[in-house]
């Protein structure tokens, strides 16, 4: 390999076709004297060889001819190498001086005297290492294992994205089980029932998560009291989810106070009774009654035997609490999420629970718009650290990408999806577009603090937990059909 050019942060190298094959995401080390320049391969193209059009046209025209060569000096094989030479496009990641990676040094290695070689996985691991103690082995990179640290997810905003069936859920499970093993609490909004099987391994035996995995199914083992939800949460549900007019909300607040004062506690039944007997405009009565009956029909509210979220969260030293939204209808999902987020916020503010990770898969389906900014600003500060998982990158607001600390990016082929993700501020758009487009399944590009801002392509390791959430097929197993 030889350096061809450097333009901005893009370095182009010429390589012979018989050199060691490179993969997008591989790191190369260009050493000259005591310094080394670290660059990451983002693409490989044919070199712009002089007269190549003429050569290719000649070859094309010769395809039907019988051509023999007497080539006494073997120039033909060299010529083949010249014509097939590669242009490697790489991104500048820094200069290694005295073992540390620095971006502030202006230095270029010699084009002709530099030694260019593939960087070792040990070096990359060393350079991407952050200050952590809780190691999570995520997979393989450049023939070596890659680890990240749980501390780099702590207090951070993380996004896991990629198109369908590329391995997002595998990685999510790997991360949350590792976090739970280190004693963290992880709340998962599970819309497809993908996380309910974490207590079992793929072969059906009990997994290591068995004692730390709780599945809360709304309407079954997860019912809450109206009083526990509180007036604020209930008015939010009425206003944002059930589209209740402002005048009706005002009437509801009056009724809430009246029930609380007269009956000593607020229940859904008490509210319904009050609405039916108190004096108010008939249209308001009708609007409130229909909405309270809707809430009652969700089965999520049970004033007699409610589950206390803080009891579940404090029942052990960390664990995965899966809120199974897969059986709930669209509106009920939103009501449950509204309740959970509101409850978690108040519990954290009161110091009743420890900070936790919140996994929100396809959050646009159940998260009201005003919550996005709330999640990445206010809620983060009180101790909710979101991990968004989505296959529709444009469903997450652009501002969230800009503030994301860590991104696990799986394959995307759609240009508009890639353009959207490329707005993430922690990496250049070329890297995102060129690498993500070609990632094979189960491979992801990790960007952000978690890798010390040194993007790495990782083949996510196998998780022995029961996957669940696979697509049910009409014709049985695909391979056998």
């Amino acid at each position, binding site marked *: 390999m030889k350096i061809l050019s450097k333009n901005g942060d893009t370095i182009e190298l010429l390589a012979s076709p018989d050199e060691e094959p490179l993969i997008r995401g591989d790191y190369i080390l260009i050493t000259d004297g005591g310094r080394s320049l670290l660059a990451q391969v983002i693409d490989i193209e044919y070199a712009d060889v*002089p007269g190549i059009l003429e050569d290719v046209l000649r070859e094309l025209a010769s395809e039907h001819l019988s051509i023999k060569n007497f080539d006494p*000096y073997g*120039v033909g094989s060299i010529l083949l190498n010249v014509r097939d030479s590669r242009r490697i496009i790489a991104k500048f990641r820094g200069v290694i001086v005295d073992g540390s990676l620095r971006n502030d040094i202006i230095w270029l290695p010699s084009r002709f005297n530099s030694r260019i070689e593939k960087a070792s996985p040990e070096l990359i691991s060393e350079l991407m290492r952050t200050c952590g103690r809780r190691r999570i082995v995520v997979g393989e990179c450049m023939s070596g294992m890659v680890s990240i640290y749980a501390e780099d997810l702590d207090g951070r905003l993380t996004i896991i994205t990629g198109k369908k069936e590329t391995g997002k859920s595998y990685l999510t499970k790997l991360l949350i089980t590792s976090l739970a093993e280190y004693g963290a609490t992880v709340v998962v909004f599970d819309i497809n029932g993908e996380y309910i099987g974490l207590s079992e391994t793929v072969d059906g035996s009990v997994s290591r998560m068995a004692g730390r995995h709780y599945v809360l199914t709304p309407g079954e083992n997860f019912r809450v009291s109206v009083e526990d939800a509180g007036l604020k949460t209930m008015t939010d549900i009425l206003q944002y989810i059930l589209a209740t007019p402002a005048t009706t909300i005002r009437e509801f607040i009056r009724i809430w106070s009246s029930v609380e004062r007269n009956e000593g506690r607020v229940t859904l039944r008490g509210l319904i009774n009050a609405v039916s007997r108190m004096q108010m405009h008939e249209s308001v009565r009708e609007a409130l009654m229909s909405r309270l009956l809707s809430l009652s029909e969700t089965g999520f509210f049970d004033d007699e035997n409610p589950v206390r979220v803080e009891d579940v969260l404090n029942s052990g030293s960390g664990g995965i609490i899966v809120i199974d939204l897969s059986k709930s209808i669209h509106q009920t999902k939103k009501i449950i999420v509204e309740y959970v987020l509101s409850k978690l916020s108040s519990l954290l503010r009161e110091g009743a629970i420890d900070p936790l990770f919140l996994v929100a898969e396809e959050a646009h389906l159940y998260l009201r718009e005003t919550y996005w900014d709330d999640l990445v600003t206010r809620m983060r500060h009180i101790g909710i650290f979101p991990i968004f998982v989505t296959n529709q990158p444009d469903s997450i607001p652009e501002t969230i990408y800009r503030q994301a600390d860590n991104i696990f990016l799986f394959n995307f082929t759609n240009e508009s999806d890639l353009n959207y993700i490329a707005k993430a501020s922690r990496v250049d758009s070329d890297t995102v577009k060129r690498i993500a487009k070609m990632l094979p399944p189960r491979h992801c590009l990790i960007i952000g603090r978690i890798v010390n801002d040194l993007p790495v392509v990782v083949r996510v390791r196998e998780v022995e937990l029961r996957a669940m959430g696979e697509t049910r097929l009409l014709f049985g197993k695909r391979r056998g059909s």
Partner: protein
Amino acid sequence: MLKLSNIYKHRETSKIGEAGDMSQLAQPSLNDFETVFKPFLEVGRRSLGLVNGAYSTEFDEENFAQNDWDLRLIEQAEQLDVSATSIPIEGAVDRQVVAIDTSSIVVAVGRDGIILGIRGGIAIRNMLGLEIQRVGPFIVYLTPENITSILGSIFGDLPPLDLSSYQLDGSIQKTLASLLEKRLQEYVVKQFKDSIILVDGSLSAGPQDNPIWLVSRILEEARPRGNDILAFSKTSILQFWSSIFTDDRLGAKPPYIIDMTWLIERLEMRVRVLGRTFLARLSSGLSAYRVDVATCRRVEEVFGSLLKSDSLIYGYPELLILAHDYCTFTKNDVIAIQAMLRKLGAEFFREDSIRDMLFNPIDRR
């Protein structure tokens, strides 16, 4: 721009088994170049060991040789009465056609001499289809000391060349390429029989690059094997006459030939044309070429077979174009040859870069 109207295909697709096939199918294959060029390769390889520092040259397209004639003679010729001979295509015999061409290039200039690359192209069309044989590139480092041994090695151990007359001057590239081309022609006429052999240039003999004995020897080897040689010159001044000898003036329609041997015999002072010379207009339009012929059949019969057996592009045999295409050097060929020489220890500099290093940015030329 290549116009379809300028591509003529008088030839028809024949089937194996028709008359004349067996002699074509029995043609030997071209596979013993290592033996034929053994002395030349040995001397060439030795010469490359002498290369150390060399300046790579700018790639330049091959220049075609021009005939150098007095224009006054053309004016005289204009007054003469000439007639065209029509080429009969109906009933013409389909024959094997073999075209030979060579190309050469200066790869680099060393301290003591020049590094030349030479490659031959042989295109064969017969009942079986089309075959291309590329021969080379041969690479030699020519210095004043080894020039005689290199040129001599082309023809084996006992070359009938007057080696003392060859010098390392501006014409040496053309001389070496021409001698190697003649050697290839000699080899081909010996290998094939009953074929039309197409060569590039003329059958003029005399200068150092076309010794009379050598051209004569090629023609002598061709005749007993039933081979007919047609030498097409792309850039002869004879072509100028095609604008004088128009179809109307001649009262003929292409394809036809005009015998110009009498004129050439009067005009060519320094060289001797072995064979007869024609101005051949084989397709409509202005394209006409000087064709020197040495045949053992009637000339119009040979041209008829050529038209039956090969396609024409602007009145020029397609097979000769193919032979040319497959021997010419591209920029990548030069890069590859230089890479090969580097493996042998040669070092290359770009002449321009030395100048830039010394004088730029002050000197902008």
